């Protein structure tokens, strides 16, 4: 191996020396995440402030990791928590079990549970990892509640219900692309994403 081989080797290094850096200076900056990133959940509320969750336990039933614990109860008549007879009075998600598969979001009949893009959190204590209803329910502006151990970057709390159905629950092809999205606190009725609605995609996709 001659001297020239070393030079040849360093050639690669020197060529790249003045290239743009690829390293992200996390945590100061963050690489952009896809629109439908599966982060931690939020429990949404209706436009009038009532909780969307009706305590039906479908999310808990469908959860493959059994990380959701829900208990339903009779809605108090004079001060209802959610519309209808029943509301979820206990709602806990164990983030040391959750695999962010979004099955709960698909199962939810009221779009109460959606996944946000928040994922930068870690725990020093097992019980920290169990998010309770008071932590999951959105605040009065319809934004998720920041927990002390969570790291949020600019804009992370937007589009917390960004995941949307591409097909109807019955699976009929006629519904594909039509978004059935109820209004929610702080956001009203969200407009469909690009490519979601048949009409929207024809307008914006052109």
């Amino acid at each position: 191996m001659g001297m020239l081989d070393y030079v040849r080797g360093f050639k690669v290094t020197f060529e790249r020396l003045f290239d743009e850096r690829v390293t992200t200076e996390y945590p100061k900056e963050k690489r952009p995440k896809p629109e439908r990133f599966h982060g931690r959940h939020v429990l949404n509320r209706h436009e009038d402030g009532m909780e969307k969750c009706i305590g039906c336990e479908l999310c808990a039933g469908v959860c493959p990791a059994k990380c959701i614990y829900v208990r339903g109860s009779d809605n108090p008549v004079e001060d209802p928590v959610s519309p209808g007879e029943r509301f979820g009075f206990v709602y806990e998600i164990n983030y040391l079990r959750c695999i962010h598969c979004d099955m709960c979001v698909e199962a939810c009949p009221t779009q109460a549970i959606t996944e946000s893009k928040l994922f930068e959190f870690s725990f020093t204590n097992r019980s920290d990892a169990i998010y309770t209803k008071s932590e999951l329910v959105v605040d009065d502006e319809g934004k998720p509640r920041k927990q002390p151990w969570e790291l949020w970057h600019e804009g992370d709390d937007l589009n917390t219900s960004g995941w949307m159905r591409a097909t109807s629950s019955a699976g009929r092809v006629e519904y594909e692309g039509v978004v059935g999205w109820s209004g929610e606190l702080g956001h009203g009725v969200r407009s469909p994403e690009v490519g979601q609605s048949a009409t929207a995609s024809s307008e914006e996709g052109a």
Partner: protein
Amino acid sequence: MGFLDDGLEGLQHNVFTAPIEELVKWARRRSLMPATFGLACCAIEMMATGAAHYDMARYGMETFRASPRQADLMIVAGRVSQKMAPVLRTVYDQMMEPKWVISMGVCASSGGMFNNYAIVQGVDQVVPVDVYAPGCPPGPETLLHAILTLHEKIRTGELTQRREENGGGAAIHIEEQPTPVIITSGSSK
């Protein structure tokens, strides 16, 4: 008792030793050496964390050490089977003090979706875990967050971060129960 016997822990805490403690903590957290313990898919993300885009070396974690003797941080990345648990413990025991453990991903933390007899339901049954990183798998950013949390933990020496201030959490309290008594006044013999 003293510096010669117990090392740094043997030092009395006073105005002179305090800066030394700060220095030691700084040195420890800026030179964590992870042992490779990639067990499953989480290991891919762990490798990604070491690669150029995220570059763990920024925090002085230059390389994953193949020998536990050269490591002081174990990142358990993946589901730990019952057969793997003693191996994991052996590697942990072989690491030099002081040492820390990050449980990466839900499988390592709680068994995750593998709620079955083959998988250890939480690696903290085998080794003491300092930081849990949620996710399936956690992305490099979540792992970095966990590492930063560990840095913070080393810096402050704080053991828990439980949020009494916001009243959240599963509220698991084990209280001393008073001895139950049945009052039978008027009916005793």
